């Protein structure tokens, strides 16, 4: 489903070249629950941006759902992000002063979902994350965990193939973080592909597969639940 082959990303600031990703290759199959781990500066955010079609690799190939992403222009990438990828960010990134319902509707406005269907779909997913009684609350009236659940509902409304979560529990208290992870588990059980970036080992343990990345290279790629004992201490 996702095929990354020989992907490199080099940032140039003045005369200094920084290699953020160095010839990375791997595949992700449909229905996987993958965690990408690594210390800060390891290149995991860059990898996430490339996987999320937010950025293009300097070299290498990224095939998403049979489509070669490097050949697409900005607007086509926007279309890919809208329809195939659901984003969940560390800082939620909800529109301020805008109700939960309207936040969840937003991707559908750009995705050409007919107006009369949007409300129904938005309510369905807000109900799924347990917020059917908070439809009209603005982000400032919601707890961190609740805001992240709104963001998860938002990531699902276009029915994407992949959920891409960047440190989804990074700003959330432990108890609420478990609730968030439970939702991801449930989504994965329903057959959705989930890619999660994290530096927290106990969060990564929810994944079935963990890729460790360091200095722009994959240093380990293995089974999540069995990895506990041998994981690299960061």
């Amino acid at each position: 489903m996702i095929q990354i082959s020989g992907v490199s990303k080099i940032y140039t600031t003045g005369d200094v070249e920084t290699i953020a990703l160095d010839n990375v290759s791997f595949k992700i199959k449909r229905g996987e629950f993958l965690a990408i781990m690594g210390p800060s500066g390891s290149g995991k955010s860059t990898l996430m941006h490339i996987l999320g079609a937010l950025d293009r690799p300097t070299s290498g190939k990224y095939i998403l759902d049979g489509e070669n992403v490097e050949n697409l222009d900005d607007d086509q990438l926007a279309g890919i992000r809208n329809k195939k990828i659901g984003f969940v960010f560390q800082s939620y990134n909800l529109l301020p002063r805008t109700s939960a319902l309207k936040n969840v509707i937003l991707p559908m406005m750009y995705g050409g979902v007919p107006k009369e269907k949007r409300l129904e779909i938005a309510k369905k997913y807000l109900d799924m994350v347990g917020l059917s009684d908070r439809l009209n609350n603005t982000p400032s009236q919601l707890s961190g965990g609740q805001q992240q659940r709104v963001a998860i509902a938002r990531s699902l409304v276009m029915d994407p193939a992949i959920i891409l979560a960047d440190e989804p529990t990074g700003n959330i208290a432990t108890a609420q973080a478990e609730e968030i992870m439970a939702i991801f588990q449930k989504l994965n059980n329903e057959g959705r592909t989930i890619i999660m970036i994290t530096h927290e080992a106990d969060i990564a343990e929810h994944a079935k597969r963990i890729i460790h990345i360091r200095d722009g290279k994959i240093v380990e790629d293995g089974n999540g639940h069995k990895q506990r004992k041998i994981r690299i201490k960061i």
Partner: protein
Amino acid sequence: MELTEIISEAANTLFTNRLRTALATLGIVIGIGSVIALISLGAGSQKAVSDQIQSLGSNLLTISPGSQTSGSVRSATGSNTTLTYDDAKAILISPKVTTVSAVSPELSRRSQVTTGGANTNTQVIGVEPVYSEVHKITVSVVSMTKVAVLGPQVVTDLFGEGANPTGKNIRIEGQSFGVIGVTESKGGSGFQNQDDIIYIPLTTAQKSLYGANYLSSIAIAAKSEDEMVTAQDEVGYLLLDRHNINDPADADFRIMSQNDILSTASSVTSTFTTLLTGIAAISLVVGGIGIMNIMLVTVTERTREIGLRKALGAKKKNIITQFLVEAIILTSAGGIIGMFVGIFTSFVISKLMSIAFTVSVGSIVLAIGVSGATGIVFGWYPARKASNLEPIEALRYE
């Protein structure tokens, strides 16, 4: 995304930042407001001037002496003394002139006028009774005596406001005149003050007062407005003939119709209106730059939001439309408010200046059109800037 949704979302965003929206709009309000106020005040004063000229008689022709040419030296226009009482009489009785109904010979000069302790310098016109018919003004003048009819302004200057001078004496150039009446006020604005005039009999002016046997002007009433051109030609050729001039280019007189005077006066007011409107338009440009400034701040401030929208699938045109619509709503709202402000201002000022209050449909169309266009012009750059933000850069922005 449908347009109605974009508009309602933009309006929502603007409403959330009420104070900023109000301040950003203010520049456009002032710009459009002053343009509209000046256009309608210009139209009003133009109408006032033309009404005043029309009130002097729309079928009026004025013959004034031209410049004097002796040898190759040409003296000032109006200095000629070739226009005579006989010319005036000839115009009236000549069989060649068929379109003239009345002829008023006139001699006017500025003179020092005194009474008791007060004195003033005003225009003294020697006229015949036919003057009131030609000029549509009520003046009763008895021939061959030293009597005077005063304009209301002269009465104020010499006797104080509201005084009744009838029966009293005034001295013009040292000679005593009995006051026999006051003209009705015709309003003092415009290019000639109709109230600051003293009327005396023509023969008195010519023989006793100024010792001049010529006229300073002859006013002619054409039989109808349609016959003005014919009357102008007939009178012109008669006078050329009487003055023994073959080439009309050498004529020692000029004939002006009210329309000639009107177009001169209107061209003056319209030049002023254009000039002032131009200055007001500059304030509109300044207002537009204010909008651009605010929109640029907004784009910077909402970088994260733009990044998020792009990450969620917004295309460039979605972002451009969103910001452009916000700018257009800002300027259009400013334009509409400015329109009302301008109309109100011109209403108040035209009442104070006692001129006609007119609002042209053109200026309203202009207000809405220009303000909308301002939004597009000055909103375009910020909107493009927003749409070109890289989603990851924008999302990282703190």
